[in-house]
C-alpha cells in the first residue's frame, strides 16, 4: 500500500493527484506550477545535497567562487586551513550581497554597503568604526557570521546543503556511490575543472531538464538523431530505430533518485563497433579502449583507487550518462574525434531554478588532472562542441524544454499526464557486481520514475 502524501495545494489538488503512483503518471501541471515551486524551494532545494563547484577552482587560501543553491546565492571559499566553506552571500546587517564578484581571491569579504567584514569561513570580523559598536550593543560577534551551509567534498566536487542534521552525503548517494566512484574517484589526482562553467538561461521549469537527467536514454534516437546522421553513433539515418544504437545496456538507479546508464562502447559508437573484447583480460581491454577521459598512462591508477569489480565494469560497460537527484546531469561519454585526437568528453551540468519558469544551465567541463595538456585541450573542445551553449547535442534539448513548459499551462493541457509506463522492473544481470536497482536491456522509464518517487518523498516531508 502506498503511503499517502499530506501535501495539498490551495485549490485542493493533492500531490498524490499530480504524481500518480498507481498508474505511473505525472500531471503536466507540475512543469510550471508556482505554488509547487515555492514548496520545492523549502522541501527539495533546502533539504538535499546540491553541487556547487569543484575543488580545483579554489586551489589557494582565500580563493572563492559565487554560485547558487536554487535561489540562495552562496560564497564557496577556501580558508587558511585549506577547508572549503559555503556561506550565504547575504549580509546579516542589511541584506546586501557581501561578494559582488563571481570568482577571485579575498582574505576578507567586506560588504560594500556599510562595510561589515567576514572571513572566508563566514565568521564575522567586525563593522567599521569599531568603538561605536555598529554591529550592536551587547551583541556577540559569533552570532553575526554569514549563515553556513553543511559541506561535503566528494571526488573534488563541492556539495552543500542547508539540511544540517539530514542524511550524510554517503546516505544521499546510497548504492549509486559504487558507480559514481568509477567516474569521480578513480585516479590519484582526480578531475580538474578546465575553466569557469558556461552559464545560460533556458526559459523552462527546472524539473523538465531534471527528470530528463534521470537517464532518459530513449530521446536520443529521435531528438539527437543528428548523432546517427553524422555517423558518430552506430547506424545510419535509415536504420536508427532498427539498430537503436546506445539503447541497450544496464541502467542503474536507487531510491534516492540518482541513475546512470552503463553502455558498452561497441554498442554505442560506430568507430568502436569492430572492437572485440572476447578472451581479453581487464587490463588488455582497458588498453584497447580506455574509458572516457582515461589515457593509457592512468590505467594502473584505476586498479589502485577502485575495486577489481569496479575496474572490470569500467573496462567493459562503463557508466556514461545519468544524473544525481535533483538537478545534476552527468555526461562522461566516449567522443570519437575525426582527427584521431583524444577521445572522451567529461561534463556535469546543474539545472539551477531561477523562478518557476526559468532555469540556469551551468555546464562544468572536466579532464583528469594528470593527463597531458593536449589531451585537456582536445577534451575541452569535445565537450564544448557536444554539450552546453553551442553543443550539437544539447542545443536541441534547450529548444524542447521551453515548449513542454508552455504546454503545461492551458486549461486542457495542464491536465494531461506524462507517461512512465514503459517499465522493465529491477533485474540483476548475470555476473553483475554492483548493487542498486538494475534495469538491463533496452533503456526504459524506470530510472526517471524513481526520480519522481524521490521527488514525491521529499515533497511529502514537511
Amino acid at each position, binding site marked *: 500500500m502506498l503511503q499517502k502524501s499530506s501535501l495539498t495545494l490551495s485549490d485542493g489538488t493533492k500531490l498524490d493527484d499530480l504524481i500518480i503512483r498507481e498508474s505511473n503518471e505525472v500531471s503536466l501541471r507540475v512543469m510550471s506550477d508556482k505554488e509547487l515551486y515555492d514548496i520545492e524551494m523549502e522541501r527539495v532545494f533546502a533539504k538535499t545535497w546540491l553541487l556547487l563547484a569543484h575543488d580545483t577552482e579554489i*586551489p589557494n587560501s582565500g580563493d572563492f567562487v559565487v554560485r547558487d543553491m536554487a535561489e540562495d546565492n552562496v560564497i564557496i571559499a577556501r580558508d*587558511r586551513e585549506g577547508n572549503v566553506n559555503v556561506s550565504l552571500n547575504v549580509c546579516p546587517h542589511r541584506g546586501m550581497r557581501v561578494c559582488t564578484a563571481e570568482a577571485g581571491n579575498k582574505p576578507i569579504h567586506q560588504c560594500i554597503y556599510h562595510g561589515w567584514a567576514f572571513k572566508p569561513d563566514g565568521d564575522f570580523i567586525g563593522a567599521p568604526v569599531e568603538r561605536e559598536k555598529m554591529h550592536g550593543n551587547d551583541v556577540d560577534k559569533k552570532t553575526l557570521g554569514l549563515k553556513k551551509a553543511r559541506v561535503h567534498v566528494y571526488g573534488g566536487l563541492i556539495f552543500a546543503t542547508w539540511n544540517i542534521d539530514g542524511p550524510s552525503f554517503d546516505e544521499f548517494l546510497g548504492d549509486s556511490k559504487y558507480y559514481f566512484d568509477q567516474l569521480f574517484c578513480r585516479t590519484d589526482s582526480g578531475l580538474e575543472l578546465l575553466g569557469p562553467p558556461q552559464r*545560460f538561461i533556458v526559459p523552462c521549469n527546472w524539473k523538465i531538464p531534471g527528470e530528463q537527467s534521470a537517464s532518459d536514454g530513449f530521446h536520443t534516437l529521435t531528438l539527437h538523431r543528428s548523432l546517427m546522421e*553524422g555517423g558518430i553513433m552506430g547506424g545510419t*539515418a535509415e536504420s536508427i530505430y532498427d539498430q537503436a544504437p546506445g539503447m541497450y545496456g544496464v541502467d542503474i538507479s536507487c531510491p534516492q533518485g540518482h541513475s546512470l546508464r552503463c553502455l558498452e562502447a561497441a554498442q554505442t559508437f560506430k568507430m568502436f563497433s569492430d572492437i572485440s573484447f572476447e578472451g581479453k583480460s581487464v587490463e588488455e581491454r582497458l588498453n584497447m579502449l580506455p574509458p572516457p577521459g582515461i589515457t593509457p598512462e592512468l590505467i594502473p591508477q584505476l586498479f589502485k583507487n577502485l575495486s577489481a569489480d569496479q575496474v572490470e565494469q569500467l573496462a567493459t560497460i562503463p557508466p556514461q550518462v545519468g544524473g544525481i537527484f535533483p538537478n545534476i546531469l552527468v555526461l562522461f561519454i566516449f567522443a570519437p574525434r575525426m582527427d584521431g585526437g583524444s577521445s572522451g568528453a567529461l561534463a556535469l551540468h546543474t539545472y539551477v531554478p531561477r523562478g518557476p519558469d526559468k532555469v540556469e544551465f551551468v555546464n562544468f567541463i572536466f579532464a583528469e588532472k594528470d593527463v597531458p595538456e593536449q589531451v*585537456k585541450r582536445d577534451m575541452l573542445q569535445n565537450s564544448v*562542441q557536444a554539450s552546453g*551553449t553551442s553543443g550539437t547535442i544539447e*542545443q536541441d534539448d534547450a529548444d524542447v524544454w521551453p515548449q513542454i513548459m508552455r504546454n503545461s499551462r492551458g486549461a486542457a493541457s495542464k491536465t494531461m499526464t506524462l507517461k512512465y509506463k514503459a517499465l522493465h522492473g529491477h533485474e540483476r544481470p548475470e555476473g553483475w557486481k554492483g548493487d542498486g536497482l538494475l534495469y538491463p536491456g533496452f533503456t526504459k522509464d524506470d530510472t526517471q520514475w524513481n526520480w519522481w518517487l524521490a521527488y514525491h518523498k521529499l515533497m511529502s516531508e514537511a
Partner: protein
Amino acid sequence: MTWKTQSTASLDSTNILRGLTSLKRVPLGSPVYNAILETLFNEAAALDERRFDDWTAMLATDLIYTAPIRLTRTGPTRDRDVMRSMFHFDDDYNSILMRIGRLHKSAWAEDPPSRCRRFITNVRVAECGTEGEYEVVSYLFLERSRGDNPENERMSAERRDVWREVNGSFKLATREIIVDQSVLGMANFAVFL
C-alpha cells in the same frame, strides 16, 4: 599556515586582450577598409539568409572560431574578465563544417529556423604582421526571433577577427566572439555569430 596548491585551472592564466593589437590602422573610407566592411555586410546577410554554402566559401580552411566566457570580477582583476580557458564556441574549420552539415539534416534547434538579424557596427581595421592579413574588430548585435515568441532573443558582442586577402576577396581566418553576458540570456548558440 596558508593553504596553497597547484591548479592549472587558475583564473588568471587569461589576459586582458581586447580590440585591435596592431597599431598600423587602416583608415575609414580607404579601399581596403571599404572592401572589408562590405565583406562583413555580405557575411551577415549570408548568415541571416541561411546561405551556409556562401558563408563556408568565406572561411579559410585554417579557421579558428572561439567564444570565450565572461566572468564578473572585482578589485585589481576586475578587467581580466574574458576567460580564455572556457568557451561557448571552440571550433575550427572542420567542426564548423560538421555544424553546417547538421543544420542541413536534423538540427531541431534550428528547424524551424530562427529569424535572425545581425547588426555589425563600430568596425576598426588594422594591418597584421603577415602581408594581406587584417585585424578587424566589429560590434555584433543579434536579434533572434524563434517560433511564435513575440519577444526576440538578443545578444551583443565584440568580434575580433583576422581576415585574409585571397585572390581579391577576403577569407575569415580567426574569429573571437567576446560576448557581454556572463550568464547568456539565450538558450543556445545554434546560430553562428
